[in-house]
């Protein structure tokens, strides 16, 4: 009933969607998978009205429709449950559920809170959530918030004639297994009221829940798989588009690391809010991958090594010297570099030029008595622009205007040019297109060759397996298992998943 025909979307320099056909039938759960940059999020935005397609046709029950904004899509029954929490934390549950729809409860300018609470309870009952509608949203658990969002979207039922289509964008990323089961049970029940589009990185979950799965790659739908007609590996092959991932992740370039040189050692380190202790070692030339779900403690490890967090107990040593004062400044002086997940917030400074960004962590090296030697800075920037073939018109280009891949290269060259030999990479390929990803993989191998130790939190499990010498699986702040990732003897996806959840 909801149908896209030959939908096209172009952005400057990117053909994001190429003649995509897509269909959701009544009461169906449709999975949508693809690597980052394959066009999933663009497709979703077209579906819920945030983007307008450049070509093709959208129809509901055969009737052509056009959405100028998400609101219009909502009025036609298209609801979105966002990956980033879209509830306003300081409002109560009922205020969030009926935000912008308060008029129905207003008499003489006054909100009838009792009526609003009752209506909210009716919505919450649909998602089987039994909480006080007057609770402040910030006090809910992630799982509860997810359900409240779903309940909020389900208010469309009463407001809209016709059928509902609900998009679930990575709904399970912050949930534990029981909560996932609960959500899936709910979605299956709700298919009597609505159709669902389910987007997730977790292939097993997509397989479990979806009636049909759309596989996207490079802005195209490369396959549509019905339930039970394929297995995880076959779908993955289609997503990546290559039979073997060896070449893609530069496996032939993986060389053994030097076990005699320990760069970072964590000895029974305990983090705030966690009972467990973490011990690990990072060696020169090693790519150490931390694998786990959101909130499993991967980020805590990275941020502790970088000095942004102070552990409660245990020892952290960098190059044999125990860290006594945890601060990024000390870490940087010890040769630690950090490529954060939030590239635009913590990685680069938008509004500053390429050369200013590159020397931000090492201004002392390019200054005397507090005065900068800008000539040298610019020479350095030109050098690295050439070395990593960064696409910027010059070293004066505003970093905020570069593409994601080139921004990432600027961040990497900031640390590499400063001689950092301990690199912490948090989702370094997030949001990059395939070509830019491969550049990052090459750079990781180059760093290993130079004897740099890399701690990596990868964007996908495949990436983690492909790139790493060593994999540590974390769950709830505890290291569950250690895998050796020598080429040819790498663990499989299922080996890892077994310990993750």
């Amino acid at each position: 009933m909801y149908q896209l025909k030959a939908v096209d979307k172009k952005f400057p320099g990117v053909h994001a969607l190429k003649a995509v056909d897509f269909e959701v039938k009544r009461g169906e759960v449709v999975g949508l998978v693809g690597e980052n940059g394959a066009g999933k999020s663009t497709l979703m935005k077209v579906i819920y009205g945030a983007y307008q397609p450049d070509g093709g046709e959208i129809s509901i029950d055969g009737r052509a429709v056009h959405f100028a904004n998400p609101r219009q899509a909502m009025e036609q029954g298209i609801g979105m449950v966002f990956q980033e929490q879209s509830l306003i934390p300081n409002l109560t549950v009922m205020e969030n559920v009926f935000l912008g729809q308060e008029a129905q409860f207003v008499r003489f300018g006054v909100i009838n809170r009792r009526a609003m609470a009752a209506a909210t309870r009716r919505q919450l009952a649909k998602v089987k959530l039994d909480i006080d509608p007057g609770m402040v949203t910030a006090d809910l658990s992630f799982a509860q918030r997810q359900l409240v969002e779903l309940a909020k979207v389900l208010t469309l039922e009463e407001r809209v004639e016709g059928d509902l289509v609900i998009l679930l964008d990575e709904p399970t990323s912050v949930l534990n297994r029981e909560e996932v089961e609960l959500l899936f049970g709910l979605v299956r029940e709700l298919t009597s009221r609505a159709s669902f589009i389910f987007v997730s990185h977790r292939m097993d979950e997509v397989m479990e829940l979806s009636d049909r799965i759309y596989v996207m790659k490079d802005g195209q739908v490369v396959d549509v798989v019905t339930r039970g007609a394929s297995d995880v590996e076959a779908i993955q092959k289609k997503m990546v588009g290559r039979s073997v991932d060896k070449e893609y992740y530069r496996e032939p370039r993986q060389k053994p690391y030097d076990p005699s040189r320990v760069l970072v050692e964590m000895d029974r380190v305990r983090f705030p809010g966690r009972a467990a202790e973490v011990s690990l070692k990072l060696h020169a030339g090693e790519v150490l991958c931390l694998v786990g779900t959101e909130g499993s403690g991967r980020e805590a490890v990275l941020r502790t090594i970088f000095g942004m967090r102070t552990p409660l107990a245990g020892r952290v040593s960098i190059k044999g010297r125990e860290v006594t004062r945890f601060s990024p400044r000390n870490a940087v002086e010890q040769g630690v570099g950090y490529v954060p997940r939030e590239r635009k917030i913590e990685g680069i400074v938008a509004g500053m030029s390429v050369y200013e960004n590159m020397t931000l962590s090492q201004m002392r090296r390019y200054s005397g008595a507090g005065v900068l030697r800008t000539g040298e800075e610019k020479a350095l920037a030109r050098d690295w622009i050439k070395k990593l073939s960064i696409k910027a018109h010059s070293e004066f280009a505003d970093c905020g205007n570069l593409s994601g891949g080139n921004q990432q290269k600027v961040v990497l060259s900031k640390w590499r040019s400063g001689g950092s030999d301990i690199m912490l990479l948090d989702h370094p390929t997030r949001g990059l297109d395939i070509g830019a990803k491969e550049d990052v993989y090459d750079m990781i191998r180059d760093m290993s060759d130079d004897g740099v130790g890399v701690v990596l939190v990868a964007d996908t499990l495949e990436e983690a397996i492909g790139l790493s010498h060593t994999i540590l699986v974390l769950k709830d702040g505890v290291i569950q298992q250690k895998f050796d990732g020598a080429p040819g003897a790498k663990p499989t996806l299922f080996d890892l998943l077994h310990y993750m959840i």
Partner: protein
Amino acid sequence: MGARISRATLLRWAPFLVLIALVVFFTILNPSFFSLRNAARIALAATPALMVAIGVTFILIMGSIDLSMEGAVSVTAVLFATVFLQLGGTLASWAWIALPAAVLAGAVFGMLNGWLHVKLQIPSFMASLAFGFVGTGLALMMTGGDRIRVEDELFRGLLTFRFAGFPLMVWLAFGFVLIAWFIQTRTTIGRNLYAVGGGEELAHASGLNTRRVRVIGFTLAGAFYALGALMAVARIGIAETATGNNFMFISITSAVVGGVALWGGIGGVWNAVVGVLIVNVINNGMVVIGLPDYLQDGVLGLMVILAVVLSTDRRLVSFVK
């Protein structure tokens, strides 16, 4: 109540505890601080600032700031006095119309302020700062720099008539606090202010007309500034260009001391009340204990810093500007 008080509860009540601590502190230093007479004195001094602080609290909840209150207070005070005297100069005549007219004028002033901010896409700090000049300028233009005396017995009754020891205007102000609280908690606009402050883009994505909410918020603030102006005129019996002086910093400081966050979404009317009382208790207490007047600004500054430090949950703040 359980034996253990949660951190959240403690923080919620922190400004109030600071207020009580201050009262105890000054009472120990000089027992005459804790008397009905002195309480009435504090309440009276606090009343005009309280109205203004409540007005600006609505703006701070949205995560904006308003610096136009001095202009708003001056212009509405002068406008009120002029109209009041023109229409007969006593509440017993048609001149009472000047009261609602002044509040209406304040609302219009606030609406224009918000409209400039939203329409011209000027951050509220700048738009309201400049618009405040316009307000002060209008007041100056209307008075030509003169003072207007308002000596009507009935109107001054706001000050002279006492009930249970407190002047009438204090009781009136309490009534307006309840109205503001009602607006904050029970009306769509009140709740929408929190939505804008908590996440403007999310609120917009949910279909809220955030620009409209902003303009209404500023309108509301303007009306409360006008109430502050009326109280100020009733208190001193004079309306002039300088009536609005010193309201800007004291009202924003009070709101923040009371626990309203400058980054939006947190705090409300009662926080403003507690904040205004904290500031006025400090001011009054310093006089009562006989602190030399030249030290008072400095001590007030230090106490304000202390109060803010004690009453904000700094774990929630990633960085402070």
